[in-house]
């Protein structure tokens, strides 16, 4: 066997001498023209290590080559925002929330790994996004997870879902981060393509912001955290077989594509990094994510003075048989790379030692503009760093598919509606018991929502709410939303609906929405129909953010979510962050117990809008027509009203209306508070824009018109609230009052709370044990 030091490294010298030797670029996912570009950049063939590096850096995942031309709109159309301290292009965006605090948050996908190995895939997804937040200089304070699976009753869902949930639970709980919310939905389009999107949010003081830049020639480059192993380098096997001969090809064939999470090491890494930041020992820092050392070194170098010299043989290894390409591509978790002034290296290493974190000086910053890597003294990489960091950019063809018209023509207005009170009652119970709308405790009980002691609201509330400052009550609210059905019908409007819903969820706590993150889950960008969906979604989001006055601060794109030629529904997941001036004044969704009856007011306008609705899907298996029409100006006024009413202490409860409409929202508020309500659907509307809901209880109960919310008022708040509604021009309708032990719709139906909750609570435990 060849020893580690003898692994036949493909050196720059050898590459220059064998300039014409064919390379396995196609197997590594590079197109011929991309390979030719590399040849042109280098003036010779790339070494195996260089080929590995370019192939991962120019992958869709790292280079955003198909999405870049569209994502630009987020900056171009961004509304003016005084709150943005760091925007797109950083590991995560940073927002000023006042009182000297800054918040950073981002959502990222780990879809494919979670399908292959659900527990570890989801766990490492959480680990990865937490490191992104940490790299900004912030202390991570909470996580969220947005999940989509195939049909709830499918055998493969029984394999994937429990594993994903246990992975998120394992990693997040062990890190000590409260899980404050997320999403769970099911649809056949996600069978084989589950979506696992993880969000992390962190807090810091303004001055604590860190940068991912390697400046100052002579500064040291330190790799710290876990040792580097063969994790996730399955793809490197073709390189090994092409360049190293048979023995190592055999061992390479065994390289795992599965990464294993080590949350304990990550917890130590977090505390270690925060102590390093506090000590001023770091001039630049980058987390190691998908493309490991390749990505961290090129991005740090390209963003700084451009040059770096790295000794790959100094990288601490868990497996001594790894060679340069594998070290560059390894996706071993729980690693970070820092740039440190030479005089501070000893202090840096001492802090690492205190936290039992392995650290090694692996190189220096240079002023050459070139990224040079050696292996036992021999150069194996010598490239202009910027060429790897700035990948190719494609303007992919896009085309609105013809089937889009057929879909729109399939109007849910033609579906048979429930007859009378009994029919409405039955449909409500069916909706509440459907997997997508059922009680999520089976999942969320596995997540720690209390740790750190600052969780004010968590699942199943509209938004998570975390206290940031104990003295003043300053806090942040966060919600994520995405509706694949709406987006399938119209990706532009569907994305705006998702944005509007997340925005409204944040507003329902009394917080002011400030900024947006997003995870764009789509099929193959090489399919013009998917590319059209993507372009529409991005345009919808950018336009929507401009209207709402909240900038996109970052996000992530996940393409290739498809089975064969069938893509998933376009599923942008939108996260909105808001600031709460006093978390003690937050209404929850639960109707108040123990108090007298509270007046119920429905805010917003209700139109007969059933395209993509939960009712059409659950009760008829139907998807067609047009999604509800978002009105983001109205959404903005509603948010203003809610913040003002919460601040004035007028709200006893607030719950936004979304899937399942008013009926489902009322049921959720009843069940959460353990208190019933009686509503009349004939009350007069204060706004002048829309007629009364009388005469059409079906639409009143199940329509999914956007921009609506139901609130329960504090005793005696009616007048003050009515005048606020007038001031913010929000249509408001008194629909009844809380109280009693059932959900009663006058002249229609009544359901005791026990019955209301029975199916709702039973669904997921019956499916998943």
């Amino acid at each position, binding site marked *: 066997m060849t020893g580690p030091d003898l692994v036949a490294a493909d050196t720059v010298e050898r590459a220059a001498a064998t300039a014409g030797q064919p390379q396995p670029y196609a197997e590594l996912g590079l197109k011929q023209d991309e390979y030719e570009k590399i040849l042109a950049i280098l003036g010779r063939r790339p070494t195996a290590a260089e080929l590995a590096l370019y192939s991962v850096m120019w992958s869709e995942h790292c280079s955003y080559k198909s999405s870049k031309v569209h994502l630009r709109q987020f900056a171009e159309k961004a509304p003016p925002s005084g709150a943005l301290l760091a925007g797109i292009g950083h590991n995560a965006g940073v927002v000023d929330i006042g009182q000297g605090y800054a918040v950073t948050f981002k959502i990222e996908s780990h879809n494919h790994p979670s399908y292959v190995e659900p527990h570890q895939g989801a766990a490492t997804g959480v680990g990865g996004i937490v490191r992104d937040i940490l790299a900004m200089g912030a202390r991570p304070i909470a996580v969220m997870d947005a999940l989509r699976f195939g049909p709830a009753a499918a055998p493969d869902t029984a394999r994937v879902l429990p594993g994903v949930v*246990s992975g998120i*639970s*394992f990693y997040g*709980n*062990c*890190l*000590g981060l409260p899980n404050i919310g997320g999403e769970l939905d099911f649809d056949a389009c996600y069978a084989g393509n589950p979506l696992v999107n993880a969000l992390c949010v962190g807090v810091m003081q303004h001055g604590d912001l860190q940068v991912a830049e390697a400046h100052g020639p002579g500064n040291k480059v330190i790799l710290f955290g876990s040792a580097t192993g063969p994790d996730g380098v399955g793809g490197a096997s073709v390189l090994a077989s092409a360049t190293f001969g048979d023995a190592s090809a055999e061992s390479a064939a065994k390289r795992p594509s599965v990464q294993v999470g*080590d*949350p*304990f*090491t990550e*917890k*130590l890494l977090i505390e270690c990094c925060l102590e390093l930041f506090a000590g001023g020992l770091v001039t630049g820092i980058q987390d190691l994510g998908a493309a490991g050392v390749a990505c961290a070194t090129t991005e740090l170098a390209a963003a700084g003075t451009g040059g770096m010299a790295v000794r790959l043989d100094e990288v601490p290894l868990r497996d001594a048989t790894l060679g340069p390409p594998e070290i560059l591509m390894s996706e071993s978790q729980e690693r970070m790379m820092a740039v440190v002034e030479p005089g501070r290296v000893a202090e840096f290493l001492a802090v690492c030692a205190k*936290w*039992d974190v392995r650290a090694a000086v692996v190189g220096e910053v240079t002023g050459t503009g070139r990224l040079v890597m050696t292996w036992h003294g021999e150069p194996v990489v010598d490239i202009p760093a910027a060429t790897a960091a700035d990948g190719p950019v494609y303007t992919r063809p896009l085309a609105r598919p013809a089937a889009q018209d057929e879909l729109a023509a399939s109007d849910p207005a033609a579906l048979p509606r429930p007859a009378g009170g009994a029919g409405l009652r039955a449909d409500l119970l069916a909706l509440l018991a459907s997997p997508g709308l059922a009680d999520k405790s089976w999942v*969320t*009980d*596995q*997540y*720690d*929502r*209390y*740790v*750190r*002691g*600052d*969780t*004010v609201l968590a699942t199943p509330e509209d938004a998570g709410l975390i*206290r940031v400052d104990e003295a003043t009550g300053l806090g942040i609210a966060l919600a994520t939303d995405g509706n694949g059905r709406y987006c399938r019908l119209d990706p532009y409007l569907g994305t705006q609906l998702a944005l509007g819903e997340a925005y409204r969820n944040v507003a329902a706590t009394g917080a002011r929405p400030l900024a947006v993150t997003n995870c764009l889950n789509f099929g193959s960008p090489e399919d013009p129909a998917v590319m059209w969906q993507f372009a529409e979604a991005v345009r919808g989001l950018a336009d929507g953010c401009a209207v709402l006055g909240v900038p996109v601060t970052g996000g992530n794109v996940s393409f290739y979510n498809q089975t064969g030629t069938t893509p998933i529904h376009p599923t942008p997941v939108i996260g909105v962050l808001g600031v709460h001036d006093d*978390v*003690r004044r937050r209404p929850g969704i639960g109707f108040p117990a123990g108090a007298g009856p509270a007046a119920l007011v429905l805010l917003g306008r209700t139109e007969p809008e059933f395209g993509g609705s939960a009712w059409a899907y659950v009760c008829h298996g139907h998807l067609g027509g047009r999604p509800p029409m978002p009105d983001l100006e109205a959404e903005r006024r509603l948010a203003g009203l809610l913040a003002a009413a919460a601040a004035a202490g007028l709200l006893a409860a607030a719950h936004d209306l979304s899937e399942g409409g008013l009926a489902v929202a009322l049921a959720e508020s009843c069940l959460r508070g353990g208190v019933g309500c009686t509503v009349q659907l004939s009350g007069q509307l204060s706004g002048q824009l829309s007629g009364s809901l009388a005469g059409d209880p079906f639409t009143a109960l199940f329509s999914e018109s956007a921009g609506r919310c139901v609130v329960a008022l504090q005793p005696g708040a009616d007048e003050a609230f009515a005048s606020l509604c007038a001031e913010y021009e929000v249509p408001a309708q008194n629909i009844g009052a809380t109280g009693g032990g059932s959900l009663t719709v006058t002249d229609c139906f009544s359901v005791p709370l026990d019955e209301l909750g029975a199916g709702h609570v039973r669904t997921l435990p019956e499916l998943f044990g």
Partner: protein
Amino acid sequence: MTFPGSLDDRDAARAVTAAGAEPVVLWHGDRGLKGVDAVILPGGFSYGDYLRCGAIARFAPVMSDLVPAARAGLPVLGICNGFQILCEAHLLPGALTRNAGLRFINRDLPLRVENARTAWTRAYAGGERIVVPLKSGEGAYAADPGTLADLEASGAVVLRYAADNPNGSAAAIAGVCNADGNVVGLMPHPEHAVDPLTGPSADGLGFFTSVLTGVAA
């Protein structure tokens, strides 16, 4: 007392402050107890809980000071992972094993205070019902039948799950104490029930005020 992987340490410190006492940070790698009047071992995942919960933490340097002090009467409260550490260190009988459902459980639960005479439960009435969150994956209390019988006979069961038994604990035991009642271990987290803003109730505060009455005396 903070071990690598302790998580609810700042919450325990906050609860101590809320009770009117001064929290002092003890670090696993240091020796000595800094003259404190009582020690709380907080929740979390010490050393990742990779072997068995609490198994590695019990060998931390500071434990060689804590164990004799606890045997000599120092009030010690172990919460969740802290409870597991106290069992591993043989300061409390029994052990905590995997939850019956094999899943981590975070739920607000009604509990009954069975023994209101320990250093940490004096503020409660015997039989009092409180609501406190549980959050653990290995919280099923286990001991051999003889030990269980002794616990019941001697009143060493401090806390019991009052409605459903969420995790398959023997005799629905949620907390136990040693013979002198100065060392108490609880699976539920009273430090997360000291303020209704951030917890289900303020019912947990009594654990932290209880110990002060002994100290002040």
